C-alpha cells in the first residue's frame, strides 16, 4: 500500500504505481506511453510531484512513492 496526498487529500494506491497509472485512474481514461489519450489528443492536464513538474512524456516512467504529494491540474475558469 502506498499512501500519498493527491490534490490535497489522502489517497491510497494498492501497490507500486507510476504517475501515468495515477492519471489514468483519476481521469478514467487509458493513456498512451507519451501521456496522451489513445486518440493522440492532449488531456489538458499537468502533474506536479512534490512541487516539481513531471512532464507528460515522463509520466509513464515516474514512480509514485509513499508520502508523495501529487497535484493533477487542468484548465479552470479564470480571468
Amino acid at each position, binding site marked *: 500500500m502506498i499512501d500519498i496526498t493527491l490534490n490535497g487529500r489522502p489517497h491510497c494506491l494498492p501497490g507500486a504505481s507510476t504517475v501515468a497509472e495515477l492519471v489514468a485512474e483519476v481521469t478514467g481514461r487509458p493513456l498512451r506511453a507519451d501521456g496522451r489519450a489513445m486518440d493522440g489528443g492532449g488531456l489538458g492536464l499537468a502533474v506536479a510531484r512534490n512541487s516539481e513538474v513531471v512532464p507528460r512524456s515522463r509520466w509513464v516512467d515516474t514512480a509514485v512513492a509513499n508520502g508523495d504529494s501529487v497535484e493533477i491540474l487542468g484548465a479552470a*475558469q479564470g480571468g
Partner: protein
Amino acid sequence: MHREALVIDGVSFHSRLFMGTGGAPSLYGLAEALIASGTELTTVAMRRHDSASAGSLFGLVSDLGVRVLPNTAGCFTAREAVLTAELARDALETDWIKLEVIADDQTLLPDALELLDAAEQLVSRGFVVFAYTNDDPALAVRLERLGVAAVMPLGAPIGTGLGILNPHNIALIVERSGVPVVLDAGIGTASDAALAMELGCDAVLLATAVTRAQDPPRMANAFRHAVIAGRLAAEAGRIPRRGRARASSAMDGRPDL
C-alpha cells in the same frame, strides 16, 4: 473598414477584445458570451483537476477555436508563478502565459518585486509573457526590458468594475511602450473599454464585466463594439479640448432678423 491586426509573437488578432473565462455561472452561458464577444483569445486558470467537471472548459475553448492564454492567478510568489506556468505549458501545450503575481487577497494588486523576478525567469525559460501589472509607467518599462511580449496594466483592481482610475498613467505607458499594451482588469462597462482604446491601448482584456453582467452575451456584444469604436476614434484623432466655445456654423451670411 480598414483595421490593422494586432500581432503578438507572430499571431494576428483581428479582435482587440480578449475575454477571460472567469466568473461565468455556467459553461453554456460562457460559450454564448465568448461567441458574442468575437474574441480570439481567452484566459483560463490552472486548478486541481475535478473529475466531476472533467475537461469541459478545455474542450469548450478548443471547440470554439479560441486561443488559450493560461494565467498564474492566485500566485503570491515568483516561485509559485513559474511552477504554475510550467504546468500550464505542459497541460495546454502553449508557451503563452498571463503572468499574475499578487501581493495580497484584499487588493489583488500585483507585487512588483515578485512580478519582475517571475517575468525574468519565464522569459529565460522561453515563455511568451503577458505581464499583468500596476498602472505604473516605470514598472512597465522594466517589464519590457526583461523581454515580455505584452504589458497589461490594470485599469482598477480586479473585479471592481471601477473603470480606468488613472488614464494619464495608462496613456504614459502606451506612449513609451515598444510592446503591445493590453488594458487588463477593472473594466465595468463598454465606455471603459472604449476609453482604453482611445488612450492608445492595443487591446482590452476583461472577464467579469461580461460574465457577471445581467445579460452576458449582450454585454459581450457591447464590448465588441466599444473596442472597435475606441480604436477607430484613436486612429481618427480627436479634436483638441478647448476652454471656450467655438461655433460650428459660420457667422458670415447671417440674416438681419
